[in-house]
């Protein structure tokens, strides 16, 4: 007997159309494992909590990136304050000198490589002093030999100094 598609669909074994409510409820209950009280055992409560948990998860996706950035900024600021520089000045100065280390790397250097970080602050202080900007409450930087290269932009003529 030839059946049309809608009728043929009904003949598909039960595995394709699970009318048994167990399957849908089990879906949510497996996500509600280790929730508090009956929200982990009863579907009517678990459904609400699980949906709310998923909404929190979605909301945190964008927030997580911002929070990590704030953490990096805080750490860089604290490490720069030991050398008398605001954190923003470091990031701005390095960008102007075309040192493309991002915040994640700068905070790693600040934590685990303090002497390398100090050399970066010295570079930034030298750069700004060449322009006439002196950060207040800052120790004078260690002697920095620049050969006039800190201010020079990257142009095809001096590409040999930058690979």
């Amino acid at each position, binding site marked *: 007997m030839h059946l049309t*598609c809608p009728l043929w669909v009904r003949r*598909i074994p039960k595995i*394709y159309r699970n009318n048994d409510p167990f399957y849908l409820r089990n879906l949510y209950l497996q996500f509600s494992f280790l929730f508090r009280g009956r929200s982990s055992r009863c579907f009517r409560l678990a459904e609400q909590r699980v949906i709310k948990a998923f909404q929190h*998860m979605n909301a945190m996706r964008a927030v997580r990136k911002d929070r990590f950035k704030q953490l990096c900024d805080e750490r860089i600021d604290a490490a720069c304050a030991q050398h008398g520089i605001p954190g923003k000045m470091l990031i701005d100065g390095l960008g102007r000198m075309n*040192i*493309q280390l991002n915040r994640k790397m700068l905070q790693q250097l600040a934590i685990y490589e303090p002497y390398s970080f100090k050399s970066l602050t010295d570079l930034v202080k030298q750069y700004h002093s060449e322009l006439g900007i002196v950060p207040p409450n800052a120790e004078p930087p260690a002697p920095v030999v620049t050969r006039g290269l800190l201010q020079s932009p990257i142009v095809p003529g001096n590409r040999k100094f930058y690979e």
Partner: protein
Amino acid sequence: MQLANFTLHRLLSPISIRCTPAAVINRTLRSSPALLGKKYAKYYFTPKKIFRKEEIYRVPKTQLILPHERLDPLNIPEPSAPTATESGLLEQLASAVNHEQSTSGRPFAIVHLVGKQYKVSEGDLVQLVGKSLLAELGDELVLEKVLALGFTDFTLYGRPMLSRDCVTVRATVVEKTLEPPKIRFEFRKRQNFRRMNIHQTNATVLRIGSIEFNKPAVQQAL
């Protein structure tokens, strides 16, 4: 099994979709029709590697190495001719470079790889999230985009990168797998709107071998 595909497609039209088990795995099933009819009832929302075929992503041109740029990791060419030197060399730095011994400390390098930066030393594992490189397991790579190098007595910073002559950072591809499945669940209240998507992204793991430092090239650059 093509009829079954067609009917499933009709069933799972987006307008009538609810968060049924079939909806949960609709996308995965579409890509692997051979699994229809097999025991998938227990895989409703814990899809394993079985659901996903190995996908070869289109590698953007920035990652490709042209034939004339390709390096043999075993036969790196010698450094180029010395660049113009200027008076007033940093004697301290030059002596530090001379006395640098790779056995004393643990050098680190900051490497730019696939859009992200990693602080790397020997024996590190680096996981590239969401990326599947064309390199196969066991292939040796040379990471050329080195932003900074650090040793016990001195560090080198590139503006923005150090030259290839100074450094070679070698890595081998250790693992190419899928990440654990991630769930995206969209819900709008009072609108009867629920969507669940489960996706697994690729991940490759590199093991950093050695960071080799070319003294004459650095001294010439100084």
